[in-house]
């Protein structure tokens, strides 16, 4: 992925992250069931975004490294 695209993706991801973890964006996900991996949905929701951040950061890191290699 090109560096510009990767950076835009990361920015969009974190903007969305802030919206869906705070009021009112979090409301549709504020529920106990279904339990996922034993966790209530309201607990699983922030967890899955933290895990997704690892993937986004990793994509960004790869794009960054490639951009530098190609000068």
């Amino acid at each position: 992925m090109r560096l510009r695209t990767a950076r835009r993706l990361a920015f969009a991801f974190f903007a969305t992250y802030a919206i869906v973890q705070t009021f009112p964006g979090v409301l549709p996900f504020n529920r106990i069931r279904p339990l996922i991996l034993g966790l209530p949905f309201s607990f699983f929701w922030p967890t899955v975004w933290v895990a997704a951040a690892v993937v986004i950061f990793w994509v960004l890191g790869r794009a960054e490294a490639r951009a530098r290699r190609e000068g």
Partner: protein
Amino acid sequence: MDRWQIITIVVFGYLAVTLLVGLLAGRRVSGSVTGYVAADRHFGLIAMYFVTGATIFSAFAFLGGPGWAYSRGAASFYILSYGVLGIAPWYFAGPKAGRLGRRFGYVTQAQLVVGRFPSRALSLVFALASLAAFIPYLMVQMSGAGIVFSAVTDGHVPFWLGAALAYAVVLVYVLAGGVSAVAWTNVLQGVFMLVVAWALGLYIPSRLYGGIGPMFERIATEHPDLLLLPGLDASGAPWSWGAYSSAILASALGFLMWPHLFMKSYTARDDDTLRRTVILFPTFQLFLIPVFIIGFAGVLFPDPPAQPDAVLPHLILNTGLPALVVGLFCAGALSASMSTGDALLHGAASITVEDGLSPFLALSDDTRRRLMRVLVVGTGALAYYLAIIQHKTLVWLLLTAYGLVDQLAPPVYAALYWRRATTPGVLAGLLAGTATTILFLLRPEWRPFDIHEGLLGAVVNTATLIAVSLSTTPQPTSHTAAFVGGEPAPPPAVGVAAETV
């Protein structure tokens, strides 16, 4: 041998190993200020990963996290949400700060800001704000160590002695090895925290309730209010959405601005190491999951702990775990406390000397390093004294600390990203923002929608910064280029000569 004696022996063994690691690590860096504060800018990925993770997750996360989940339920999820959001800007700002540090010799956050906005007053305000935020944070860590010691030894090691023992060890290795000792002990402490938290987080629910799923099923039936956002407040009434949402945003904004954390930008070997640290950080953040699970395990436990913050030690002592495991848990909790406390002690001393004294007095490298060591002892003693005499007003103090740290964000981002920002603008913003924060802290009922006072302060701070900057003379492009980008410029003066730039 009594159970508490075995536990104490395990803990002493752990403290001895920590001390040894700290002393050995300190022998590997140069005797200069850069060596003491920024480890000769030599940290690789493993060191940076654990330094960052262990520094961030303190006794507050290890004891306060389960305490919040136990007493306030879903309100605790805000702690899980803000970390990743808070560290994301470091991916861009960290390498930039690191490059400027290598180029101009910066070792603190204020030096970077003052390099861009030359003003000794600004340097002093930064140093004072950092210290005001550090002391209560350090008190929390020392109290954490004291609570753990007195809980698991049935009071045979009292609160004051436990805190003193743990911090005597910290003091010795910080004095001897500076940031390098802080780092290598954090590697050990970080591993301990991760292993202990995950092991207990999976073991306790399965031992008490037959697994994590069955446990939450029962809580969902008996206390469903605990599992829905925004959770409960300290008195057990529903928390407000404004407070929950702004707690995430205010903490995310202030997160990187903790000076002891921001300063770690200067310790990395290169940009890539810093970026990879940020990439891997969310994996450390997931450590909060077992921590919260342990707190929820306390909800259904028939016999309640003396106070919410003691829920973790309480469960561990009452689930029939062998003394060795209890000792290891104790070591994990002490790790969380000490790995943050050491960075705070070291940071407080470095900042006082570099930002509070150096701009006003001409001090040699040798004198500065010696002064830092004196201040490590002084700050430690002051925080210890305060922690012993009054650990009840901590929550109030810690809230003040977060509000103050938020106010450092606009100056730092303006220094790195906004060409048109000026010195009067930054100073005016900082003062207006701090005043706003303190006003709403003293008058919480005036806060619109229960929004965190640090966030309200940051809004006023940013608006003032922009308004005053636009109405004052812009800085020359030759000066801003080095910070914001563009053509390279000669290094701006730091220290005594700064006022004349």
